[in-house]
């Protein structure tokens, strides 16, 4: 894996393989972990893959869910109307949301009647291309999608900066920590007490994080 990715924004896995962190938490804890998607978490995909290909074929989201529930989509801040013609690339940001209320919600929604009202920020279809190299992109999830599909992406694995994960873990309450069911860092079982100091030790690196729920 080392040296596989570079990122236009300086985010990436360059020379060093990322640490591998497996967490098992209770369901309440999972609902806290998913909030990280509001700012975004890194996922892997193939450059040139369509939104459908990367989310459904690669990461296991169902086509029905993508078509029926993911009704507001942005690729690099541009509103997407067609998930089969918008393609990911290195360092891009893909944000997914359910239908939103109000006029703005109607205007921004995927292929909605009012989409013409935001034509200056509409994503233009990308030309088809052969599958490219492995890239990292940022996935953001909002509102209902956090709880509905956030756990799926966490369980299949995301990539996060060690510093960001440390800050997140340091902010957590006692009740959250009570939900901890297991911590495995690079194959080594850690206690809760050992975990954060280990994270703090390596603040520059990236972590390949998997979080699964267990009651």
């Amino acid at each position, binding site marked *: 894996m080392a040296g596989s990715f570079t990122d236009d924004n300086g985010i990436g896995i360059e020379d060093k393989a990322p640490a591998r962190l497996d967490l098992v938490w209770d369901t309440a804890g999972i609902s806290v972990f998913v909030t990280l998607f509001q700012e975004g978490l890194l996922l892997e995909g193939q450059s040139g893959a369509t939104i459908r290909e990367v989310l459904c074929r690669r990461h296991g989201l169902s086509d029905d869910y993508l078509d029926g529930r993911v009704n507001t989509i942005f690729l690099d801040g541009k509103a997407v109307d067609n998930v089969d013609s918008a393609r990911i690339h290195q360092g891009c940001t893909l944000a997914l949301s359910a239908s939103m209320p109000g006029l703005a919600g109607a205007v921004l929604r995927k292929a909605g*009647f009012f*989409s013409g009202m935001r034509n200056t920020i509409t994503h233009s279809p990308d030309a088809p291309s052969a599958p490219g190299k492995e890239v990292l992109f940022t996935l953001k999830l909002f509102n*209902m999608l956090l709880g509905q599909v956030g756990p799926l992406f966490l369980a299949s694995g995301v990539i996060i900066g060690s510093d960001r994960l440390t800050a997140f873990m340091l902010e957590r309450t006692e009740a959250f920590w009570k939900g901890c069911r297991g911590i495995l860092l690079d194959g080594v079982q850690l206690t809760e007490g050992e975990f954060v100091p280990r994270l703090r030790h390596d603040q520059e690196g990236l972590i390949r994080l998997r979080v699964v729920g267990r009651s």
Partner: protein
Amino acid sequence: MDKILRIDMGAEGGPKATVAPIGNYAGLGGRGLTSAIVSKEVPPTCHPLGEDNKLVIAPGMLSGTTAAMSGRISVGCKSPLTGGIKEANAGGQAAQCLARLGYAAIVLEGKPKTDDTYKVLINSDGVQITVDNSLKMLGNYATIDKIKEQYGDKVACISIGPAGEMKLGAASVACTDMEMRPTRHAGRGGVGAVMGAKRVKAIVIDDSGCKMRSPKDPEKFKDACKRWVDGLKTHPVTSQGLPLFGTNVLTNVINEAGGYPTHNFSMGRFPGHQSISGETQAARETERGGSATHGCHRGCIIQCSGIYNDKDGNYLTKQPEYETVWAHGGNCGIDDLDVIAQLDRLDDDFGLDTIEMGATIGVAMEAGVAKFGDGQAAINLVKEVGQGTPLGRILGSGAAVTGKVFGVERVPVVKGQAMPAYDPRAVQGIGVTYATSPMGADHTSGYAVAQNIMKVGGDVDPQSPEGQTALSRELQITTAAVDSTGMCLFVAFAAMDQPDTFQALIDIINSFYGLSLTGDDVAALGKSILKNEREFNLAAGFSKADDRLPPFMKKQALSPHNIVFKVKDEDLDSVFNW
């Protein structure tokens, strides 16, 4: 709802109430009625705070019935903020109570001859107007505490805070919610200042002993109401998004679109968005023992509101809405929900429009009065408004006045009213509505309902260049019509995606009133309301030049998309060509 209560505040010997049949205004409610009365009875060139202006308070056509979501109340007048016609609306209990007492409207007229402060009681025995100077300059919360002591907590109350008494352009009219707190505001356009000019501090509405209004065709009405509720409970926006996260669910999404006005409309994204998002807000409310799902009036089944408690778990304010969180939050660089909640509480207490105040503080921050991001400074500025200091009175007069006083070029207003939380450079079609709405920049002109029923914009391709103006026209017409029903704005999505649900709404009106309206009739109603409003503004001195966004929108590109507002003036002028 077949009578109108008129109170002549300037009558010889003191305020005088008369109740008369609704007459020529029959069949109208909400915005349809407020705009009809204002355009027919108020001289367009009158001074908004003078004796010739009238404050019209009207429940919607369906308020006081068992139809879900029907508790919106409209407040209309000539606006002291825009100088044009105004309708501002609010939730809370007042619409239902007033409608059950049979009143289609309350009209406050004339100008009192003394400095006394008045309180009005309306119940099934009639109307009582009394001087109550103990209420003078009290905040809305303290006012309601006094009203509760005297009348109990089962009444509804419409009141103004000190901002209304000082007749400031950002002053709102407050309505009490289900817990009898003054949290629901007809905020826009300075309607509170007109109530202040009439020196009416509080209108207490006691509907005890009154029944629900009864429909002409009870069976059909019941069936239509059931289909209506089923539709609202099925749609993901009205059954999940709004109840779970409230309107603030929009923060992350608008920010992602690059249309979230930040630091006084100088950027389209706010770095601290996730700290103030609806998702974060809902989690905090639940964690502190408040609530993320709460209605503003009985009969609301969407429940987009909530209860925001402070760090110690004590009630601080109702759940601040998206517009409030944006105005006091990202627009001022503030990423602390507790600060925003305190500002919301202060606005509600002083009786101020949260959009106008947030936009005004943004302008003041740009002028260097305070630093962007300084929450304590923002709190202090709002407190100055409540205290009526000279600076406070400038700020309380709104963003346009504040911009002038401090020499700021970037002032986000149309017709003198501050823009809401969507930057028109990113979402240009919304800019068309901001520019051309007779109300000034207004986000509520957005009832996007089932197209195949309404089709009021004609058969224009919505993706074509003319599409922008055609869609805005369609939205404004539909909004004007639905604003007359008393239905909450947030029914719109279910009514847009599910034609059966929109049909159920029309069937509710028809079965209640014994009518046979079609989508075309609804469109005709919307058009006639807009026509009244446009004619009033024209006679008040408005011209095409007022249907424009501020010049900076065409010159200063908005990040991250680096775009300016591009819709041509000719296109803006064609919005009302129907």
